[in-house]
């Protein structure tokens, strides 16, 4: 069993290596956190990760130790126009779609983009866009 926090840790670590994105975030590499992060001191623009599902892929012998996860990346910006929000989304989409890698806790096969939401106004001052991915996760031996 691979716990949610280990998957989340791997994903955030991977996201923090994308320097083209972290360079434009208000808090740099610290600008990438989980969606429900309960702090209140941060700067826009920022990226938030939401691990939406982490399900065991059933196999009778239980040898694969394979999981299927779905996660969303939210990009928030406070600029007057949606340009910055869309640009960061584009950078993430170009980097992440189709990649696979081995993290500290598990191996992640090809990231499949399953939804891409253009920037919308979350409230009067904040833009939000979203990328949703699905991938297979294999626990490292």
């Amino acid at each position: 069993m691979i716990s949610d926090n280990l998957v989340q840790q791997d994903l955030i670590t991977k996201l923090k290596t994308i320097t083209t994105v972290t360079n434009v975030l208000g808090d740099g590499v610290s600008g990438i956190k989980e969606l429900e992060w309960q702090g209140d001191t941060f700067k826009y623009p920022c990226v938030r990760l939401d691990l939406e599902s982490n399900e065991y892929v059933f196999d009778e012998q239980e040898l694969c130790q394979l999981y299927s996860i779905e996660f969303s990346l939210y990009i928030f910006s406070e600029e007057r126009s949606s340009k910055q929000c869309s640009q960061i989304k584009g950078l993430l989409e170009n980097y992440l779609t189709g990649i696979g890698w081995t993290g500290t806790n598990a191996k992640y096969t090809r990231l499949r983009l399953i939804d891409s939401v253009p920037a919308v106004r979350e409230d009067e001052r904040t833009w939000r866009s979203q990328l949703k991915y699905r991938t297979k996760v294999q626990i490292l031996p």
Partner: protein
Amino acid sequence: MAKTPIVKISNITKFMDSLARSLRSNFAWSSQIRKTIRNHPATDRSGNVSGFITIGENEKDKSGNPLSGMIRAFEWGSGIHGTKRAKYIISPKNKTRLAFLWPKATPPYIRGRKLAGTASGGRLSFFYVEHPGVQKRGSIEKSVNATLSKAVPELKLAIRQNIVDIINITVNEINKTTAR
């Protein structure tokens, strides 16, 4: 086989965005309320895609009461304009009297059940006042109706396209399997 949703998050987000924009437009008369309209991210939990919008969440009005109360009053009407069809009483909370300027009142100011007398700065002092309430504006109702008539056909088209995509993917996968 690939799991492809019939309703995508982007479909619901677009729908919710239309509603949020309509709400911001219909609440143009109150910047205090308009600023609290928040379109939360749509979520997909086991194929159930949903989104929600909050208005006045965790916000207070100028008197320190939840803003939701004020929004409710303007949506459905309050006092004589509401369901109770009666004025409601406003009494002091932290002081013993209410005091404010009332240019329409003319002397003599006789102390009674409501009027306590005069206060500094030309104000009148009251034990309590009766407020007639506010008229219904129905801003949320207008927005919902406007959005349903415009965005539902768009959502239907998007869902129809998703179903066509799913059928195409499934047929392709069946063809690949039978060709092996």
